[in-house]
């Protein structure tokens, strides 16, 4: 039967609302507003998990996001399960199910606990040292290691939750809503600056909001009352947006920050249904005020990890904020006054404090006097040397320190009973975000803290994250900093009367001495990764000197908490051991995220149909209605083939391509890039961007062009039509359209600003239906009867303006199939209707819609290249046997110079050729390698197959390939080396069908 350790009412939780939840299968109750940690502690549950390496029992140590131990799996065995959730952060809700991690069969009896007894065999670098030999055993080792690695279990089903992103632009971003954050937000907003205030907790006010010490006053009110009034005033400010449960994950350069806003993690499943769970805020702030506070330090001594050992600030928060006693026999271990403040607070609530063990010799402030007056036993100049109790702390052993703190004054050991130990090892400014932004730190020797030094962007740090720990310093320095930073004359906080006791004596010892040899102790530095002080010392003995190397060798600071508690101790121990100053060592790099982010948050709504944007042609609905299969071409969804009944793709493509050659086919060619080119220098512009000449192209005529990169390699191709004296329309490849336009704009704006040329994309403005085949002319005649389609009036490679009813259109007689073809371009919103009209007109000719696969086959029969398939950025026009398209007369064009380099003129470059298989029914695999001699070692690779199909019009397999020196190898036999066989092929001309272009001009 668990006890109820709720000791007082708290205004921060709703004691009228009971919340039922399960932990390790057992039902418990807490109140609305409780975290899982506070609710468990109120039920006297300290043991919540097992440690990563040694499987030691671990309890709740903190009350915040720095928690290293109390990580739980929530909603296990469901799609909503999540590992490594900090019990100190998750708020309980009805139906929450949480379970301990890293233990089997249970947290109380964990088989892995044997590791604790084997710990002498598991030093730092255990894996590196142990699994080296024999090398052949690695796979076996790996199997075992992988099964024991990791914390928690990943969900196995798709995440049913909804996530989102939001961009925010503000004048001032304030991170942290403790007392300094409140001051900063109020000041900024009152000065007409659009301000955003974020805090990871569900309440504003930080630790001041539950401060109840009689010794700490602002304007003669308790600091919490004063702050409450300030918070009330915040709500009236128009310029201020406040977000709680929002943690800044990353602070990038130029004040770009990412934050996770938790929207439903505190709600029951029913209440959270269909709501956005978490939102990633992408924040651009003109100015940033970091008010992230500081983290209390634990203390490093033997067995400092038992359940019941906590931070003193956490003990205080559980009592003051949640009304929960974390123990009934409390002891504090301290090097500063924080523990005294906590002890007094506990005592005032009737929670027994047995003693305070202080490593200082003469602590003497109002807090220390206050504690003494309450009758709390104080052990001055003492340290803890050991703790006892396997699953819950029950005793501690203390000894008096020597003068230098490195050994003992005598050999007397005092044993004290206790069930909760609050450690107060001083404070570490939370500089993580500051350093993520590129800020440089400096080390302050007097109290051994790293504080911000050089700011990389328009930002400041205020409060304890800037090294101000006393309330009067915090308020005065923050006010001063705000005035300078925001360029204002005054704040509301300039003349406050602040009273607070001063911490007069500071003593810091990174690693406390033990009465046992170090090798026999377990002084944990990094609780989450089970790294101890002796691991760090071992790393130093083994030659690791850089903090970055020690970190990786011992895994210190590499857990999900990123060493928020232990990193400073690791530095201190290294410095002490190596005999150097901490400031000289520097710190390890703090990297985003500050606390772990879910993948869902990072992805947002970019999942499922919104994973990538897709583009549809105007005829898309027709393709869907007619059961087309689609393929992705860039972002376009293009009709791939139109299977009938149970046809395979092969069968459909054979049918479609045969029909296109025998009678008529129709293709949706709307995706081709289309660029409208106008201006008096349009012809000159084309001369410069294409390899061939354009000035003499007559109005009304079309010409194929090849565009090169400056390196002479083929970049894009397409047909350009001269619409008027100074007006052309260029077509590009589907995938290359955007890049071609941007490249051409780039040239116009940077290289040739003197040219009078204007480019506009009209890709989406036109729908294009391409009709090909022997009956295409008859079909077009039915659609546009008044257009003269005679070869004299409308020859191949020309265009006509026309009208279909009242709608203007352009008809190009151009062909990518080798058939007599027309491309009808009409304004996109008439595209579907045009297509239907073509189908209707073509019905008597059994017009066949065909998709991209058939298009590829038909063009391959003609040896027409596809840029990107038959080229790969290393092919010149000459390599493609397209010398005819490269003008020798033009002064210049992009890539010309490169075509005359010795490398591009070599005879043995890879060149485009045709391939025929000895067995005409054998279709080669695209990408297959081409060789001459399979017995040679290594086998010489001559090239590869770029396009390969079975041609129903030729009744044989055909392929295009690039082969080294292929141009001069016509008729030669080569081998396609496949996994299980060799296929014999012969090099042939790449034009397989209608070499004389009879059909094209028919």
């Amino acid at each position: 039967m668990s006890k109820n350790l709720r000791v007082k009412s708290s205004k921060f939780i709703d004691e009228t609302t009971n919340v039922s939840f399960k932990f390790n299968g057992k039902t418990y109750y807490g109140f609305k507003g409780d975290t899982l940690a506070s609710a468990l502690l109120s039920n006297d549950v300290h043991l919540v998990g097992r440690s990563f390496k040694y499987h030691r029992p671990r309890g709740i140590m903190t009350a915040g996001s720095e928690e290293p131990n109390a990580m739980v799996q929530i909603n296990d065995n469901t799609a909503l399960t999540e590992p490594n959730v900090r019990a100190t952060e998750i708020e309980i809700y009805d139906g929450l199910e949480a379970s301990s991690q890293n233990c089997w069969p249970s947290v109380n009896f964990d088989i892995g606990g044997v590791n604790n007894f084997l710990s002498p065999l598991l030093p730092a670098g255990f894996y590196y040292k142990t699994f080296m030999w024999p090398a052949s055993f690695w796979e076996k080792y790996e199997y075992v290691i992988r099964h024991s690695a990791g914390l928690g279990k990943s969900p196995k089903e798709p995440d049913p939750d909804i996530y989102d992103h939001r961009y925010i632009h503000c004048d001032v971003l304030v991170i942290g809503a403790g007392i300094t954050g409140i001051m900063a937000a109020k000041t900024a907003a009152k000065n007409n600056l659009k301000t955003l205030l974020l805090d990871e907790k569900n309440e504003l006010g930080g630790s001041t909001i539950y401060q109840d010490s009689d010794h700490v006053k602002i304007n003669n009110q308790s600091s919490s009352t004063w702050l409450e009034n300030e918070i009330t005033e915040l709500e009236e400010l128009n310029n201020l947006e406040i977000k709680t449960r929002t943690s800044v994950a990353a602070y990038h350069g130029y004040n770009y920050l990412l934050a996770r806003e938790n929207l439903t993690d505190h709600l029951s499943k029913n209440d959270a249904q269909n709501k956005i769970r978490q939102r990633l805020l992408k924040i651009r702030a003109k100015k940033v005020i970091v008010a992230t506070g500081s983290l209390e330090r634990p203390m490093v001594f033997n067995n400092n990890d038992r359940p019941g050992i906590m931070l003193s600030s956490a003990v205080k928060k559980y009592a003051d904020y949640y009304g929960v006693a974390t123990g009934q026999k409390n002891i504090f271990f301290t090097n500063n006054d924080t523990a005294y403040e906590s002890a007094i607070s506990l005592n005032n609530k009737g929670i027994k404090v047995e003693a305070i063990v202080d490593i200082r010799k003469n602590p003497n402030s109002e807090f220390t006097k206050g504690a003494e007056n309450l009758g709390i036993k104080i052990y001055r100049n003492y340290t803890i040397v050991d703790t006892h109790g396997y699953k819950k702390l029950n005793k501690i052993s203390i000894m008096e320190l020597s003068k230098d703190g490195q050994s003992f004054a005598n050999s007397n050991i005092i044993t004290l009973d206790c069930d909760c130990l609050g450690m107060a090892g001083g404070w570490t400014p939370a500089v993580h975000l500051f350093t993520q932004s590129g800020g440089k730190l400096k080390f302050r020797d007097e109290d051994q803290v790293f504080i911000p030094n050089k700011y990389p962007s328009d930002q400041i740090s205020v409060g304890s994250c800037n090294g101000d720990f006393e309330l009067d310093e915090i308020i005065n320095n923050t006010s001063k900093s705000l005035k300078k930073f925001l360029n204002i004359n005054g704040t509301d906080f300039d003349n406050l009367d602040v009273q607070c006791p001063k911490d007069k004596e500071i003593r810091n010892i990174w690693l406390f001495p033990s009465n046992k040899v170090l090798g026999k102790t377990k002084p944990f530095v990094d609780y989450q990764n089970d790294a101890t002080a002796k691991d760090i010392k071992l790393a130093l003995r083994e030659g690791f000197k850089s903090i970055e190397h020690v970190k990786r060798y011992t895994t210190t600071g590499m857990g999900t908490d990123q060493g928020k508690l232990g990193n400073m101790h690791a530095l201190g121990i290294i410095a002490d051991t190596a005999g150097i100053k901490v400031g000289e060592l520097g710190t390890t790099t703090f990297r985003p995220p500050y606390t772990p982010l879910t993948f869902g948050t990072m992805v947002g709504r970019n999942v499922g149909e919104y994973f990538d944007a897709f583009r549809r042609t105007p005829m898309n609905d027709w393709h869907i209605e007619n059961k087309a299969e689609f393929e992705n071409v860039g972002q376009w969804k293009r009709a791939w083939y139109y299977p009938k009944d149970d046809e395979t793709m092969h069968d459909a493509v054979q049918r479609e391509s045969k029909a296109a050659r025998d009678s008529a086919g129709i293709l949706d060619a709307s995706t081709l890039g289309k660029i409208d080119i106008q201006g008096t220098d349009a012809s000159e512009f084309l001369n410069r961007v294409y390899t061939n000449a354009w000035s003499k192209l007559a109005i009304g005529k079309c010409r194929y062009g090849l565009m090169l990169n400056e390196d002479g390699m083929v970049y894009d191709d397409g047909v350009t039509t001269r619409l008027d004296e100074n007006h052309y329309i260029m077509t590009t490849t589907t995938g290359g359209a955007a890049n071609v336009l941007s490249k051409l704009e780039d040239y116009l704006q940077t290289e040739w600003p003197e040219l009078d040329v204007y480019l506009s994309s009209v890709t989406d403005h036109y729908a294009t239906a391409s009709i090909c085949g022997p009956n295409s002319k008859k079909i077009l005649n039915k659609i546009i009867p008044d257009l003269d389609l005679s070869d004299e009036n409308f020859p191949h490679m020309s265009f006509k303006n026309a009208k279909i009813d009242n709608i203007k259109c352009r008809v190009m007689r151009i062909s990518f199939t080798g058939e007599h073809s027309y491309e009808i371009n009409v304004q996109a919103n008439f595209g579907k209707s045009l297509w239907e009209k073509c189908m209707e007109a073509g019905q008597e000719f059994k017009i066949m819609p065909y998709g991209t696969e058939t298009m590829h086959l038909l063009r391959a029969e003609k040896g027409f290249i596809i840029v990107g398939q038959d080229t790969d950025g290393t092919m010149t026009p000459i390599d493609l046997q397209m010398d005819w398209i490269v003008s020798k007369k033009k002064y210049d064009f992009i890539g010309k110079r490169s075509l005359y380099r010795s490398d591009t003129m070599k005879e043995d470059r890879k060149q485009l050729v045709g391939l025929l298989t000895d067995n005409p029914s054998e279709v080669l695999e695209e990408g297959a390698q081409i060789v001459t001699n399979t017995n040679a070692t290594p086998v010489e690779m001559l090239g590869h197959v770029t396009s390969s199909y079975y041609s129903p019009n030729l009744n044989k397999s055909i392929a295009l390939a690039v082969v080294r020196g292929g141009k001069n190898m016509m008729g030669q036999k080569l081998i396609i080396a496949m996994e299980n066989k060799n296929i014999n092929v012969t090099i042939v001309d790449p034009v397989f069908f209608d070499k004389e272009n009879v059909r094209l001009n028919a």
Partner: protein
Amino acid sequence: MLNYNTSIKQDKIYSDLEIKEIKPIMKLIIRGKTKDFITTIGKNLNMILPIEPNTSTAGEALTALWLSPDEWMLISNKTISEETNTYEVEDNLIKNISKTKLGAITDVSDQFVLINIKGNKVFDLFATGSPFNFNEFKNKKGSVTQTILSHIDVIIHLTEINNVNLFVRRSFSEHLHSWLNDSASRL
């Protein structure tokens, strides 16, 4: 007769938000650099092209959106007929601008789909997918911006406070419209 079919299937209404396609609208890209160009446009259209970046000017029948120092989009203020794609304004400008070598006129009426979005949550909607800072934009009637929304290029024109015309390339419009509705349903 060819029928007019747009990519947007349905208008949608949410609390504080209305998403509706406006069609057909004539849209022309007009480009030119010279003073003569600006003057001729002014004379022919009876309106001045906006020179200040990311602004617009509106005449009785037409609105001009600034897109770049030598590029504007001219749109009809009212819907036009679905039964023709011959526009008097275009013909007039081709005659007086293109043919006189002052600049370029390009019909982009179907290049862009115009989606009107209005309501108090317009900019909350945009904040879910656009990195653009709308803080000043949303208070300055006539503002124009070219930005991305859900990774897609868009032009946004503030016609009234909390009322915008969004221009998106037709091929992306179905996807963007679906995304807008998904996002709007969660605001």
